[in-house]
């Protein structure tokens, strides 16, 4: 075992390059959730490509291949780690491994100094160093992943010296599966294949999955459409793996050799999220249903937990997954989601999130202090367009209403004028004067009578 401080240069290495520092590309594959994937590794391990050094902490007897000399030097001091630097074309001389991990895929292995390896050629190298009973753990970015669908066109980085993948790179999950090995298991990664925060089984569904997707995409900025909604939709329609940003494929010779990658969602309570139930009721115009759900939520211990982080179990109990924030915040969060463009909410004339927050509180018969706050959420581009169209409609409505009010005002002014004329006529005409004279005469007579009496 090599515990020395020097990396071994195997040929084709890039002298002035780092994938780990993130300045010339996406940075290393990283994320604490990946520890579960590394935990499945066994025997003699080979890690290919840029991975966050923190992920090596739990590994023994591990060899790592990187292409930049700077990265090789960074990793070389770590105990238990053999560091190779160069092109995968030179790997054959390193013997075989029980586990090969390449969570970044095969896209950042080749170097500027090689003749250029195709994806298939690199996979062939990987297979050639994998023991017959070995385990292959391969990451892949989904070219049609929703992270790409929702993103504006990206600029090329220094790492894109050949900016498009070669023909041999699998275009579908089926092709990837066929390329990877005999028996495979697929995991989907979100929100970003390089920095996943969530790993889901291929067929994962349900409220806990949706809650986790909401959390995973909470930091999304400058997007065309809301990625969390798209991800949740894809999972609900059985297309989760088709649109997942990234895949991790675990392949082995037979089923018994496949490990179980532990997920935070193992053993999650089944059932939909409270938000989903409220959305369904609101979309169906089931207002009593909305009232009941909001009342139940806001009168219980989870009042301060956002509705998309609460699971309604089949026995009617609620399980809070998220942290308790504050009921006003949780209600506002729900209101802003219900007001998202395209969602057919039933509240007419509602004037923004604060307004709907107050209505929801009233529907649940709770008293919460709802402050006037501007929208916190950066709108995806599609919602901005919808918002613009909504505002155009609202402006037209406001003009129509102004015209109505003006006509109404004219009508009431006419009524007032008629009443005034009537008052004037009654107070100024002959009979009115005669009446006043009569009343005056009666008063005078009464005064005289009183004096005399």
């Amino acid at each position: 075992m090599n515990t020395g401080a020097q990396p071994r240069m195997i040929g084709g290495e890039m002298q002035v390059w780092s994938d780990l520092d993130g300045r010339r590309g996406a940075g290393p594959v990283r994320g604490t959730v990946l520890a579960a994937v590394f935990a499945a590794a066994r025997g003699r391990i080979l890690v290919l490509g840029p991975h966050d050094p923190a992920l090596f902490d739990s590994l023994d007897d591990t060899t790592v291949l990187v292409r930049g000399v700077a990265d090789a030097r960074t990793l070389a001091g770590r105990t238990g780690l053999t560091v190779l630097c160069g092109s995968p074309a030179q790997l054959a001389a390193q013997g075989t491994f029980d586990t090969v991990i390449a969570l970044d895929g095969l896209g950042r292995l080749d170097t500027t100094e090689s003749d250029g390896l195709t994806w298939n050629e690199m996979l062939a190298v990987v297979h050639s160093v994998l023991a017959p009973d070995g385990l292959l753990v391969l990451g892949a970015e989904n070219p049609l992943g929703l992270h790409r669908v929702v993103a504006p066109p990206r600029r090329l980085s220094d790492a894109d010296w050949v900016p498009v993948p070669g023909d041999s790179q699998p275009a579908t999950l089926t092709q990837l599966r066929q390329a990877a090995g005999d028996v495979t298991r697929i995991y989907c990664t979100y929100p970003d294949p390089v920095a996943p925060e969530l790993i889901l089984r291929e067929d994962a569904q349900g409220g806990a999955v949706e809650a986790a997707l909401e959390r995973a995409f909470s930091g999304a900025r400058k997007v065309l459409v809301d990625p969390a909604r798209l991800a949740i939709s894809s999972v609900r329609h059985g297309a989760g793996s088709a649109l997942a940003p990234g895949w991790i494929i675990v392949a082995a010779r037979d089923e018994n050799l496949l490990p179980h990658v532990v997920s935070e969602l193992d053993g999650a309570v089944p059932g939909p999220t409270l938000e989903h139930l409220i959305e369904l009721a609101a979309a169906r115009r089931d207002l009593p249903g909305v009232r009941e759900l909001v009342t139940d939520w806001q009168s219980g211990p989870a009042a301060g937990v956002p509705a998309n982080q609460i699971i309604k179990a089949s026995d009617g109990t609620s399980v809070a997954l998220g942290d308790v924030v504050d009921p006003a915040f949780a209600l506002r969060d729900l209101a802003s989601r219900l007001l998202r463009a395209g969602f057919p909410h039933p509240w007419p004339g509602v004037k923004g999130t604060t307004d709907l927050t107050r209505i929801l509180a009233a529907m649940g018969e709770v008293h919460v202090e709802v402050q006037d706050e501007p929208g916190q959420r950066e709108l995806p581009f599609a919602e901005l367009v919808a918002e613009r169209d909504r505002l155009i409609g609202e402006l037209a409505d406001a003009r129509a209403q102004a015209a109505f009010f003006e006509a109404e005002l004219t009508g009431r002014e006419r009524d007032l004028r008629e009443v005034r004329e009537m008052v004037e006529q009654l107070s100024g005409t002959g009979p009115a004067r005669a009446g006043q004279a009569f009343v005056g005469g009666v008063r005078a007579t009464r005064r005289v009578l009183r004096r005399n009496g």
Partner: protein
Amino acid sequence: MHRANDYYGHSTILARYCGSASEPPPRIHGYLQHGWNIGDGMAGDHEYVSGVPLFLWSERTRKRAWSLGRRETYVVGAPWAYLVRLKPERAGAPTRNGTIWYPFHGWEGQHVRGDHARLIDQIKATETGPVTICLYWQEYWTPGVRRRYERAGFRVICHGYRGDARGPGDPDFLDRQLAELRGHRRVASNRLSSAVWYGILAGCEPAVYGDPMVLENEDPAHGGQARIRRQWAELHGEQADTAVARAIAVHELGADRLATAGELRHLLRWEVETA
């Protein structure tokens, strides 16, 4: 914002439910459905301004209104249902007796063509207990019509003035109606109308029989009387199944979908007035 919101004291009832002491009641931001109808809930002769919410009685009306292009709708239930909730029937209330009968009326400017005499004969032949005839104010103040029912031996009443474009109606119109309905065992009319639904919700057994009388220039767009008789066949006839009638009335008046007071205050834009 529409003057019809004050018809029958509707806005006053909602203000009472919302705990507003404002007199006159605060202005409703939107159109409040003011009578049961088989169209989009709005009166046909009302000007409609886009973007202004429509507060409807029932989910069925809302769906129909949507299909007719109305989008800004919200089912709040009928003001009558709020009144019934505000004034639950007392436990030791006097026994109900006889029938309150609502001969179908036209509105101002409409003229009913029909035979009052034949209707009176039918009422006499059908009703076994004392009969109270409730006339629309216009007929009540038409001596010929009123006397005709009085001469038949019926008690003749009027709940009050509905209201019009110039001014609101009697604010306690519906209170009087509720008190009268609760004094009777049966409610009847020659047309299925708001009064019959109100009566059912107030605990009366319903009946719809007799010449439905034809209005001059009646709008056939939504199917008219023929459609009403087809769609709500269970309620037509001299007797009806009370439980079935009640379930339908709850639905038509939205009595199962009433908003909370706080919700209504926000929807009608009364937060400021009642704060």
